[in-house]
Each structure stands twice: as C-alpha cells, then as structure tokens.
C-alpha cells in the first residue's frame, strides 16, 4: 500500500500507571503499549518496554489474569547530568484478563530490542471443534 509506505511513526507520551496496587517498590510505573493478535490456536502479544533487559522482565498468569512487569535498568545514567528531557524513565506494569483458556505451561516469552513478545497457546479444549450433528 502506498499509504503505509509514507506513514510516519507518531510519538505517544508515556502513560503513567493510574492506580497501581500498593507497591513495595516506590517510583513511577508506566503502562506499556501493546499489540495483541489472535490466531486460531494462540494469542500473540507485543509490549514496548524500552530500557528493560531480559532478566528484568516478569510474566505471570494467575486466575486468568496476565501480568507483565518490566524493571528498567538505570546504571547507564550514573554520573550524568540531564540537560533536556522529553520522557521519564520508569518500570512497566500492565495486566490483562484473558477470556481465552491459555495453556500456561507452553507460554513463550522473549525480549528483543526492548519489545516483549509473548506467545500464549490456547488450551486444546478452547479450540473450535466441529460437532457432528446426527440424524434421528
């Protein structure tokens, strides 16, 4: 499509997590932007978490609630003095309640270039199945 060829990326201001639960770790939390795409037998999720390294990301699925948490690395800022800033730095937190039955044991998570990629395979029984209608 010619239109998509020239489309430019829009800058969105980071959204601060409005009402987080009581936290033991203080500081600002931001809501990572996501794409969620549904396939026949799985869901795929991408979440932007710039500044987070793979050891600092935590994904949990409990009682149908998927929680994504990323802790941002701050060592690189040590000894630097800000001159001008356009965004703040913080950890990421977002939760989703999943309607689909997900097979927890087969969830795959990878972090690549600051994007968390999650593959959430549906449980067998959640897949559509053709039911044979029998005549009388």
């Amino acid at each position: 499509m010619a239109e998509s060829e020239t489309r430019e990326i829009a800058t969105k201001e980071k959204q601060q997590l409005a009402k987080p639960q009581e936290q033991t770790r203080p500081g600002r939390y931001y809501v990572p932007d996501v794409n969620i795409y549904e396939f026949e037998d799985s869901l795929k999720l991408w979440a932007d978490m710039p500044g987070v390294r793979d050891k600092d990301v935590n994904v949990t699925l409990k009682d149908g609630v998927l929680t994504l948490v990323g802790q941002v690395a701050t060592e690189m800022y040590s000894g630097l003095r800000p001159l001008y800033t356009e965004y703040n730095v913080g950890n990421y937190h977002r939760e989703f309640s999943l309607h689909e039955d997900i097979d927890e044991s087969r969830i795959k998570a990878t972090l690549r270039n600051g994007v968390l990629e999650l593959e959430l395979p549906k449980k067998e029984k959640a897949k559509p199945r053709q039911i044979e209608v029998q005549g009388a």
Partner: protein
Amino acid sequence: MALVRFDAGLDPIGALLGLQDELERFMRNPAFTTGPSGFGAFPPVNIFESPEGALIVAEAPGLDPTKINVTGTAHTLSISGERRFESDGKGRGYHRRELSEGKFSRSIQLPDEYEAGRAEARYEAGLLTIKVPRSEQSRPRQISVQSA
C-alpha cells in the same frame, strides 16, 4: 547546577527515584532547544552531559539495528529509520493495536561545544544511545599560574 543524586549499583530503587525526579526537573527544558524537530517528534530523546560530552538516549523499541541511520554534521545529529511489523494475515485479528509503525526521522541540534561528526551510536534494549564528544577547545584546561 543539578546534583547527581542517582548513583546506581548501591540502591537500585533509590537510584530510579532520584533519576525520575531529576528527569522531571529538566522536562522540555526551555533553556535548551533541539532545533526544528523538537518535542513530539519520534523518537523521544533525553539529553545528558558528562565531562566527556553529551549522551543522547532515544526510546525507539522494536527496530532492526541494521536499519537505523544516524548521521552527524557539525553540531547536528540526524536519526532516521523505520519500524515494521511482520504481517500474518492468517489470524483472526487484533484485540489491541497500540504500537505504531512507519518511518521516522528527526534532527537534534546540539550546543556548539559538541562535535556531532565524531559521535558514536549504539542500540540496545530498544534504546538508541549516541555519545557526542566535546570539542577540544571546549574542554576545561588547567592553566598554570606563573610567578613573577
């Protein structure tokens, strides 16, 4: 002059809190201009200084590192690239679609004491960091005091 209160390594939480406060104080610092493409242009940048020079940290997740273009001339840095998602039409569709894709390009004007032509860039964890050294003339020099 700001005091650098964030000292990572000792206390990661305190370091983050200090960093957040410090960044807040310099948010869109009116005393600093990035030139024609300012706030609102992609990617958003934070600019820091150290004794060696300036450090620009741009939040640009999900890029192919081989397709990021950084050029430096005199005191101006230009960043351009593109973010693309592989499309797979076989699925049922999007439940959420908040990430934007497309091309971007912005330029950043630095004060005269920085030499953008000698900048070094690195892409890691979705952050593009560009180190711009200070020019020789602008570095502090010890002046020896001679006695009569």
